[in-house]
């Protein structure tokens, strides 16, 4: 066997490994979501049903649709807001000269590594005092703050690649800084902005600990908390509901991941991975 063939073989093994290892839990999730009872492996009573889906989408008291709506709204607002706030800051950092710039960039980077648990305790007290517990605001504000380091980082790497002469040209053309950001820099860095919004959406959509502490019921509870706390009527874990709810709620993220794979990878790596 020559080197080319060995390489091909290793590659094939690698691809199979990726597909099997990364995908089989998803397959399992789908199978259980469509089966009447989750213990079919030992009972051998595998049967196809749509009732799990019907139930979670129609039984009001399960609140799954509430969770989904909450999650979509909260993550959507948080993602857009932090991308916009991040864009303002990234513009200032990549364009203006000022003292302490390094401190801000590195400080924000360090913030992104704070454990949620060392924030959430005080946040709970803070939100209680503001009477915001179990509202969208209780999650949207911390989510914006918590995703800002990521937003800043992604946008900074895109903005700093746009030559300063473009800004100068726009300044000479009479544009204000805000106009330059809106009409020139953001449109040019649109792929970066899209990457940022997608990643930030996923970031907030997937968050658990804040949502667990700062919400109490379906009025603000998000999908991860809903799925973590799903209780059956008789104590037994309602696997069928959990898995069908999981399938429904992962569809948006899976679509994003598969269709916008390039944007996500570019966003995560600051555009270092080209195609």
């Amino acid at each position, binding site marked *: 066997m020559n080197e080319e063939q060995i390489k091909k073989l290793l590659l094939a093994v690698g691809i199979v490994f990726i597909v099997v290892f990364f995908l089989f839990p998803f397959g399992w999730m789908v199978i259980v979501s469509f089966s009447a009872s989750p213990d079919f492996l030992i009972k051998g009573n595998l049967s196809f049903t749509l009732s799990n889906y019907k139930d979670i989408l129609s039984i009001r008291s399960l609140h799954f649709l509430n969770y989904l709506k909450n999650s979509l709204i909260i993550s959507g607002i948080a993602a857009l807001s932090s991308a916009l706030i991040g864009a303002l800051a990234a513009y200032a950092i990549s364009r203006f000269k000022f003292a302490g710039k390094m401190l801000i960039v590195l400080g924000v980077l360090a913030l992104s590594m704070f454990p949620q648990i060392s924030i959430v305790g005080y946040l709970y007290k803070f939100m209680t005092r503001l009477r915001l517990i179990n509202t969208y605001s209780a999650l949207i504000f911390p989510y914006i703050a918590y995703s800002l380091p990521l937003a800043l980082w992604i946008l900074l790497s895109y903005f700093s690649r746009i030559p300063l002469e473009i800004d100068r040209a726009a300044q000479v053309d009479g544009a204000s800084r805000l106009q330059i950001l809106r*009409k020139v820099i953001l449109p040019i860095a649109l792929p970066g902005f899209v990457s940022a919004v997608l990643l930030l959406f996923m970031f907030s959509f997937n968050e658990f600990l804040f949502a667990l502490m700062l919400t109490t019921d379906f009025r603000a509870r998000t999908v991860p908390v809903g799925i973590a706390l799903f209780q059956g009527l008789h104590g037994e874990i309602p696997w069928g509901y959990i898995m069908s709810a999981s399938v429904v709620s992962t569809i948006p993220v899976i679509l994003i991941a598969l269709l916008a794979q390039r944007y996500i990878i570019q966003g995560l790596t600051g555009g270092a991975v080209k195609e």
Partner: protein
Amino acid sequence: MSASTLRIIGLSKEFRTLRRYVVALRDINLTIREGEFFVVLGPSGCGKSTLLNILAGLEKPTEGEIWFGETLVADAKQKRSLTPKERNVAMVFQSYALYPHLNVFENIAFPLRIAKRPKEEIKKGVLEVARLLAIENLLSAKPKELSGGQRQRVAIARAIIRHPSVFLLDEPLSNLDAQLRVRLREELKNLQRSLGVTTVYVTHDQAEAMTLGDRIAIINQGILQQVGDPMGVYRHPTNTFVARFMGTPPMNLLKAKVLEQSGKVYVKIETMTLKLDETTSRSLSALKSSDVIVGIRPEDIKLAEQASSARMFAASVRFVERLGADFILYVSIGNNKVLIKLHEDPGIKEGDKITFSIDTAKVHIFDLNGRNIRK
């Protein structure tokens, strides 16, 4: 004083960053007349762009004042600086700086859109300048689909659409190939003439400066060296820097000693003695037996048949550069290398001995600090 006469008074600019401290411009004084095509010439890094950016209002001076006519547009003392918009300047950049996400029409329209002009006016204006620059057929193209020359035309169109009172160009042709550069040079000159707008044009290319400029200013390391009309600067460089910077190949600069014999003044370069003409002699007589630098342009040296008279010199050729129209001989005179520029093929090979004469009326004499003595 007219509205678009530019006066630069005592202008200095320093950059301070974490790592370094640069004086980009040092005490510049200049007046640029209304409607003039003014060229700022200097090697890369000498501060040309900085000067243009300060004129545009993109940078603030560390010291000095800028006047546009009767208006003080920048004053370091009062920490006052009008924005580019308030100055009504337009600028063209070396990289063109077109907006990559907008098509040509929108690129040109951008300044008017920012100024919130009515739609019809924008359309009319864009079509008008597009026609002027012969880019009407490109209006729907994106910048990346254009050639360098087309991009530059779009950048110029975007600059003139607002009818600026001052037009600033920062090496607009240096990213283009040689042929296009020559053609656009001419177009630019004609355009400027027909618009009659005060223009400051920055370049590091002396040929460009010579052909374009009504007047040129030469800057080196942030210091203004000389201002004047192109031929004047070429003929009477104030110092060795300007002397070498203007003209290709550059002027030969040779160490020499001033001698006086029976009332006549000579300069001695190695073994070669040059007799100088009357005017030069007069200005040199005070410098008897001191060291000077003699400047001789390569084209002011002529080949001669034989070392017949005292005005003829001999040397050996080390290298011949055949440029097609011109021929450059690299010749050694003692320790000095001298270039000779000829318009006809001399039929000379490396190693050949030649004899030549020097047009002494065109010889420049500089003191050891590089200042022209005859001036």
